[in-house]
């Protein structure tokens, strides 16, 4: 019952970042799952970096979750690490994402801060092809 060949063949995807305005987020479908591309505001980045030292379930620095020099772009798999629901932005206690299913709170870096989820929102493999274009997968 493992994935069939056509499912495995799902190609990587390219995305034009100019579509995402400041402080906005675009949701793409990648490998059947939602993918968040967020253009973070300086305030969001500041908040994420300031919390680097806070106690966390899955400790990670904000800088390790973005590409060097591209701190405004946060690319995440939009699937809660608890049970796979799609978190919504702008809810929760940490100004980031909130999962409506079981109440997991993520911060502006997508790190798990409160609730049942065990891990931070996953950052997929991606690279910048140019300043305005990323290749995901």
């Amino acid at each position, binding site marked *: 019952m493992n994935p069939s060949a056509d499912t495995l063949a799902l190609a990587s995807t390219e995305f034009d970042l100019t579509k995402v305005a400041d402080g906005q987020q675009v949701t793409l479908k990648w490998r059947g799952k939602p993918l968040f591309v967020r253009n973070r505001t300086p305030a969001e980045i500041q908040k994420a970096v300031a919390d680097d030292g806070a106690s966390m379930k899955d400790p990670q620095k904000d800088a390790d979750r973005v590409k060097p020099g591209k701190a405004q772009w946060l690319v995440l798999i939009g699937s809660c690490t608890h049970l796979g629901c799609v978190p*919504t932005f*702008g*809810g929760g206690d940490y100004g980031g994402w909130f999962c409506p299913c079981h109440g997991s709170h993520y911060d502006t870096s997508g790190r798990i801060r409160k609730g049942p989820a065990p891990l931070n929102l996953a950052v997929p493999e991606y690279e910048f092809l140019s300043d305005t274009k990323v290749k995901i997968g």
Partner: protein
Amino acid sequence: MLRKLSVIAAVAGLMASFAAAPALAAGHPLEPEKIHWSFNGPFGKFDQAQLQRGYKVYREVCSSCHSMKLVSFRNLGDKGGPFYNEKYPNSNDNPWVKAIAKEFEVADIDSETGDAIKRPATSADRFPSPFPNEAAARASNGGAFPPDMSLLAKARTGGPDYIHAIVTGYKNPPAGLKVGPGQHYNPYMPGDLAAYWSGDHAHIPPGGFIAMAPPLTEGGVTFDDGTKATVDQQARDVSAFLMWAAEPKLEERKQTGFAVMIYLILFAGLLYASYRKVWKNESH
């Protein structure tokens, strides 16, 4: 006997506690006003004149953005539908249905040349969608996707009451609520306004944002039967029409239900009498 009744009461109680349980809590929008619909209750029926008015509101207002892709033109002439007529038991022959279908164009393939063409719809066709796909719909509506209306009255908690409340319930946003471009404040819309509220956090306004501007205007539609087209009237009529679109077999269901209930009650009475007779001389 008392013990037997308590068994039934306990089962009913268990049921009631579960039926009451799934109350929607997210965002805490206002509770829609309960409207006395003609189709409420065990003997409820659709009001055909209301469905016809509702269809007109859908056609002239809603259908420019909202699709209704599960409904066919022929359904309009089905029993219980807005244009049903006893003379035309087969709704495909119904002249009103044919006339309505002709107003729409649907995509097809020319069977001789194989070219993509547009042809007038027939009564067997489904309602064509205003946009070819979701992306096109979003692009034309500021990023928001107007939901398909075929099942809207069943797909929202509160059903037709909710639809009526949404289209009549637009309010000016309270001071301190930041409304984004292309957004409208509606206290009946589910949502989370905490991030947009600069006032007291214990008193976040009820409701949420909706991308649709208030769709109905006073006299925006002229009803053929002379009914005054107030916003409330239009909202009621279109909500009733959407309930019909979502559950076209409602009348048939309730009528069948009545016959089944009578049968089951008689059957249960008969079995109870047999039970008393069989057990008459046995202590238990």
